[in-house]
């Protein structure tokens, strides 16, 4: 299948952004052959998107900088080409689904490239329909973007680059905003397209377990602009590099390592669907499980937040939430999960008073707050939005954090004290006089959390706090939230990350089409195939391992694993 001339070839290639002192990519040598499927991973800022942008021509035609060495794409030297010439060869699907949906309807957006190529209307309509059919969105051609889910929008983006009959498909973090099931079907769809048309596929992604659901030919590991490793998934997974460079390894792999199985000998280790454990291995897993203390989780604290029979819709004709009743206890760390558009964010807005329910009541510490104002509730319940840039309005960290206290009647001194204390908790004290613009995304996120914490809420709600973050930042944020939780603050996290739910929360609320479908521990939720299916979640690979080894209580197995991992982590510190 592979021919001998690479379709993409980096030769001693370096790139330096005009605004940077150092080159971002350093002396890369990399050949990619037609029909290959490549995964690029690496920490935040390691240069993954930069590589992608070099291939599709945004570098150097949109982002200025200095190129050394050579990069050829389909036989063309990119720096002597143009973004238009490259775009007929490379199709790029970016992370932000709204930024690339430029048409007013699905059809228009898919046809966008054809319009720019001056294709006749009749032919354009035919080709648009064909591409839409490939990604199964052809029944929605006249839909506007607000009538589509995140996964559907992504399909539209894919169809939009497929119309150009490109030879190379490039995905930059395609999974970041998708619910687990949609993410899984996106990966399956990419695989299907690649097989049908034999395109070359390059995927940039942090969630490697999810990408490895379908076969990948090679994984490139990047660090600080250099290629650390270029190998098959099998080689990379069984070696030490993932851990060393702070990439999250697949859960089942970690579990097998804990139980003492020699993973380098396991057949088909690069995909949970193909893992073949020997009888010995299985016995080892069972033995490990039987030796673990069984964690017991109980929380019989007072109820701090309660909703009763909430109904809500943004407009009169479309109801979003139906009869939502739930109780949250003081000191819990809780996950809200469910399909894109299930109403998770909407529920949070109701709790914070951003929207008012059509019927039903909300209680804080047994007190009816259904009619309280946003500001009154904010003293008890803090809400952190997903994009920190939507919350930051001051240029200095201190001012940003102090903002919420301005009208609280505290004296300057008291404010200062409170702010410093909060900054210390958030690990930002040493940056207190920095301009916010000098912070990384993860640090900005912490500033926004600090600006909510400073008001002293008992409950803090975070909407997808870790989307698009690499493993190090993910761990940093989640450890920080756990610490807050240990200090008695109730933490509610809306998330699509099943690992987060398992690892850090003691309870999960599963939403489906605006209804609370299940209220249970994360491990029980993820070991329930029927529930998983209906709520668009994804089975944990630990469940598969437990089944494979004939463990009759997979939930307990998952709980043991999580408890063990927590212990390991605290040892590591």
């Amino acid at each position, binding site marked *: 299948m592979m021919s001998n001339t690479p379709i993409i070839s980096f030769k001693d290639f370096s790139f330096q952004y005009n605004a940077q002192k150092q080159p971002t990519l350093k002396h890369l040598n990399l050949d990619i052959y037609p029909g290959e499927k490549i995964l690029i991973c690496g920490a935040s800022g390691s240069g993954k998107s930069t590589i992608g942008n070099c291939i599709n021509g945004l570098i150097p*035609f*949109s982002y200025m900088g200095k190129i050394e060495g050579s990069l050829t794409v389909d036989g063309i030297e990119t720096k002597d080409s143009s*973004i238009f010439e490259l775009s007929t060869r490379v199709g790029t699907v970016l992370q932000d689904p709204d930024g690339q949906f430029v048409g007013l309807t699905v059809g228009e957006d898919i046809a966008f490239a054809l319009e720019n190529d001056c294709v006749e209307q009749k032919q354009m309509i035919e080709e648009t329909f064909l591409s839409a059919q490939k990604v199964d969105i052809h029944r929605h051609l006249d839909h506007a973007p607000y009538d589509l889910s995140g996964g559907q929008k992504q399909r539209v983006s894919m169809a939009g680059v497929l119309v150009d009959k490109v030879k190379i498909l490039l995905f930059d973090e395609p999974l970041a905003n998708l619910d687990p099931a949609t993410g899984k079907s996106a990966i399956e769809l990419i695989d299907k397209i690649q097989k049908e048309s034999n395109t070359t596929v390059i995927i940039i992604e942090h969630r490697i377990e999810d990408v490895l659901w379908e076969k990948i030919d090679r994984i490139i590991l990047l660090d600080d602009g250099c290629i650390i490793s270029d190998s098959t998934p099998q080689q990379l997974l069984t070696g030490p590099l993932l851990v060393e460079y702070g990439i999250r390894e697949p859960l089942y792999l970690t579990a097998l390592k804990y139980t003492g199985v020699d993973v380098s000998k396991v057949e088909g280790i690069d995909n949970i669907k193909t893992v073949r454990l020997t009888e010995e291995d299985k016995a080892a897993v069972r033995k490990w499980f039987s030796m673990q203390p069984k964690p017991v989780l109980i929380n019989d604290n007072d109820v701090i937040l309660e909703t009763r029979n909430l109904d809500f819709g943004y407009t009169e004709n479309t109801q979003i939430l139906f009869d939502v009743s739930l109780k949250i206890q003081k000191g819990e760390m809780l996950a809200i999960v469910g399909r894109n558009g299930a109403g998770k964010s909407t529920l949070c807005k109701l709790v914070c008073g951003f929207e008012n329910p059509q019927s039903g009541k909300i209680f804080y510490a047994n007190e009816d707050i259904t009619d309280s104002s946003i500001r009154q509730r904010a003293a008890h319940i803090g809400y952190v939005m997903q994009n920190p840039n939507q919350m930051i*309005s001051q*240029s200095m960290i201190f001012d940003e954090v102090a903002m919420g206290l301005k009208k609280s009647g505290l004296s300057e001194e008291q404010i200062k004290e409170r702010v410093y204390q909060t900054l210390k908790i958030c690990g930002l004290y*040493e*940056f*207190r*006089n*920095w*301009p*916010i*613009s*000098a912070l990384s995304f993860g640090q900005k996120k912490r500033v926004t959390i600090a600006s909510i914490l400073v008001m002293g809420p008992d409950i803090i709600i975070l909407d997808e706090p870790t989307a698009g973050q690499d493993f190090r930042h993910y761990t940093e944020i989640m450890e920080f939230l756990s610490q807050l939780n240990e200090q008695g603050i109730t933490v509610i996290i809306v998330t699509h990350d099943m690992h987060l739910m398992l690892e850090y929360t003691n309870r999960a609320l599963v939403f489906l089409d605006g209804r609370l479908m299940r209220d249970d521990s994360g491990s029980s939720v993820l070991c329930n195939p029927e529930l998983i299916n209906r709520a668009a979640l994804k089975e944990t690979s630990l469940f598969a391992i437990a089944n494979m080894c004939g463990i009759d209580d997979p939930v307990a197995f998952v709980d043991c694993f999580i408890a063990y991992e927590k212990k390991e982590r605290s040892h590591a510190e």
Partner: protein
Amino acid sequence: MKNDSVKKVVATGIGAALFFVLARFVAIPSGIPNTNIALQYGVQSVFAVLYGPVVGCLSGFIGHVLTDITWGEVWWSWAFGTAVYGLIVGVFSKRINIQSGNFGKTEIITFVIANAIANVIAWPVVAAVGDMIIYKEPANLVIAQLAVAAAADFVCAVVIGGLLLFGYSKTIAKTGSLDRE
């Protein structure tokens, strides 16, 4: 530059959308009964400074016409006033080099002067002449209305636009030598 022209197309569209949203849905009372602070002109002036006269002019014009049309009536003379306002502020954008992260005394003075000139030409001249031709309204009414509009928009644009530009300039400030304390 090719890249720049696409960016300007997008900036025009997004600028117009911002103008529309602020003009149509956001009412911040100004203190004078029944009049609101015209935030949209502040944002338009920011776009004019960041992206130049063409974007300043078209984003305002498109935003204005779209806003009017949802009310069922287009005031062409005022729409042209908005366009001219953005155009003139944009002409001064070369003198306000915000991308370098500076928004100091000279930049502020330039911005204020640009706004003064732009508001005087846009309202009491362009829009007023338009109103007098289209509606043959008495000059004293037109001038009274438009002088008030010019003064109000001048204040809004200078204060809102100025503060926004100041805030923006802070985000591109170079990190320089920052010490942890």
